[in-house]
């Protein structure tokens, strides 16, 4: 393999990214605009972070220790949720329907009892008393439906047990994870997904690029030179890894400016960027599959969404408030593992060597390499490189 050819083609791809306005926008400006828009919506840019009004109907029948009160105080301490106590569900539902509050949370009668049973025997699920918190959301507010459930889940998880890695609990936690939430903004909860979100659009851009080079005869022209398929593909993968890295840095700078300050060291950041780099392999793979199917660059744009949308909705922060079935489906897309690992590192305070992060990295690496290999084989079979 001649590196001279690889670097020449990589250099060409980088120039294309910088010089073609549409590509430049999608790859670099879009993530910046996107993070800014989300940061402004969720992160409190331009005048404090948003506060969501939650109506609480507390049916808890506590005996000695009133755990529901402690839990509600923890929710209030997030500074994102403002708790308003209602005497009955009907009144709370009326206010919800009038848009006065964004959610209604019904604390079950057995909340304290359930929590006490868990504390008495944390390792014996058979002795727990199960309880479910019901949450009603203002369906007219996309922001509320996206932001409120994960925040409550995070606080509930931390409240249940700060010290366990993946707590089973008698209280219905769904996708709860461990985080000690004190003064977190909604941006903190969605920032890990943003790193993934930006990179996913590479699928569309790379697929377009391949289809375009085929249409205008450049692919054929390169095939007439002594450039080998390995050299060509290496240059493509290298180019888009560099672009993904620059995207991740831009997203990081933006979320940092918006107030995202995870309390982690430089190694964690380096590992986070490594995750994004590995993830970019799958994007090149998906783009090759797209370019194989698509007969033209415009068709490639449309077809790429077959891969872009599942990755977006099932694997980024958007997936936090999806149904449990959708969350299971999310485990079949690579972006889920990047977001999960980044959440573990940035929000849960997990170490790089923690089993959860290593497992995410392992699944991500294997799946991304497999997708890239499938992409190369398919493209090579139908179009020759």
């Amino acid at each position, binding site marked *: 393999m001649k590196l001279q050819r690889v670097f020449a*083609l990589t250099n060409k791809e980088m120039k294309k990214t910088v010089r073609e306005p549409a590509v430049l926008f999608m790859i670099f400006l879009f993530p910046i605009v996107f993070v800014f828009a989300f940061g402004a919506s969720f992160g409190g840019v331009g005048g404090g972070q948003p506060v969501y009004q939650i109506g609480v109907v507390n049916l808890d029948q506590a005996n000695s220790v009133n755990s529901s009160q402690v839990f509600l105080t923890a929710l209030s301490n997030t500074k994102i949720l403002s708790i308003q106590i209602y005497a009955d569900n009907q009144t709370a539902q009326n206010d919800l329907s009038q848009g006065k509050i964004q959610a209604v949370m019904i604390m079950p009668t057995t909340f304290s009892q359930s929590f006490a049973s868990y504390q008495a025997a944390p390792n014996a699920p058979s002795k727990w008393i199960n309880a479910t918190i019901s949450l009603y959301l203002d369906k007219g507010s996309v922001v509320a439906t996206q932001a409120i459930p994960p925040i409550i889940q995070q606080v509930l998880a931390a409240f249940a047990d700060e010290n366990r890695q993946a707590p089973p609990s008698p209280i219905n936690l769904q996708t709860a994870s461990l985080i000690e939430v004190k003064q977190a903004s909604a941006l903190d909860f969605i920032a890990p997904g943003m790193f993934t979100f930006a990179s996913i659009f590479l699928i569309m851009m790379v697929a377009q690029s391949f289809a375009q080079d085929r249409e*205008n005869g450049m692919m054929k022209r390169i095939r*007439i030179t002594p450039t080998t398929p390995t050299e060509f593909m290496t240059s493509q993968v290298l180019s888009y890894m560099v672009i993904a890295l620059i995207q991740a840095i831009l997203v990081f700078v933006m979320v940092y400016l918006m107030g995202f300050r995870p309390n982690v060291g430089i190694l964690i950041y380096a590992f986070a960027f490594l995750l994004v780099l590995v993830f970019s392999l799958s994007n090149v793979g998906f783009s090759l599959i797209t370019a194989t199917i698509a007969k033209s660059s415009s068709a490639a744009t449309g077809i790429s969404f077959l891969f872009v949308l599942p990755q977006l909705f099932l694997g980024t922060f958007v997936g936090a408030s999806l149904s449990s079935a959708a969350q299971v489906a999310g485990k079949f897309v690579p972006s889920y593992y990047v977001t999960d690992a980044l959440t573990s590192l940035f929000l849960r305070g997990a170490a790089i060597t923690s089993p959860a992060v290593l497992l995410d990295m392992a699944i991500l690496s294997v799946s991304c390499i497999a997708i890239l290999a499938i992409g190369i084989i398919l493209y090579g079979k139908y179009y020759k490189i």
Partner: protein
Amino acid sequence: MTQSAIVIENLVKKFEDVTAVDGVSLQVAKGELFGLLGPNGAGKTTTINILCGLVKPTNGSAKVGGYDVQKEPAKVKELIGVCPQETAIYPYLTGAENVELFGNLHAMNKETVKKRRDMMLEKMGLTQDAKRKAEKYSSGMKRRLSLILALIHDPQIAFLDEPTVAMDPQSRHAVWDFIKELKKEDKTIILTTHYMEEAEELCDRVGIIDHGKLIALGSPEDLISKNKVNNLEEVFIKLAGRKIREEI
């Protein structure tokens, strides 16, 4: 005939039920400027694509520079330079960057790339525009740049597929002069064209191809005198029974 640069034997290429190349056999000598003539769709480009290793023949064999195009395509690619029919250049790169990229793809050293880049841009009249993005070039300038990309690595054998199509007369004559210079350098050149006057002006020998078959082979003068006509256009009319550019 002196040593052959290209040997084609009974070449056939079928695309489903269409026979694009139908039993073509010919030899091109080293240093010869050979014209492959015929109307659009005659099979010229398919023949070139087979010789470059881009398309697999259905039958027959082809050797370029002594190497079988199917068995040793990598060796063939080191010997050849191809100017495709479509103007294939990267529009977002400047003229000079396009040339440098192809120099690098041929693994040329930096100094040689620079020297040949400047020399060829000068010969093609593109020096003034070398630092402009290729997308800003006129169609004639793009064609000339495309020709430079094919020849930057100083190949022994050049395939020029309709290099002057849709060019203004000034650009066309610049390209003709350039091709004549290549011939002086003892390069083997295969030129496909449907401009008969171009073939008469440049080629040592021509092969006229129609519906995939080679219907005539010889020097322009021989073909004209043998058929008792005034030019190659009339040779084609006499042999094919129609004008060469009717289908354009």
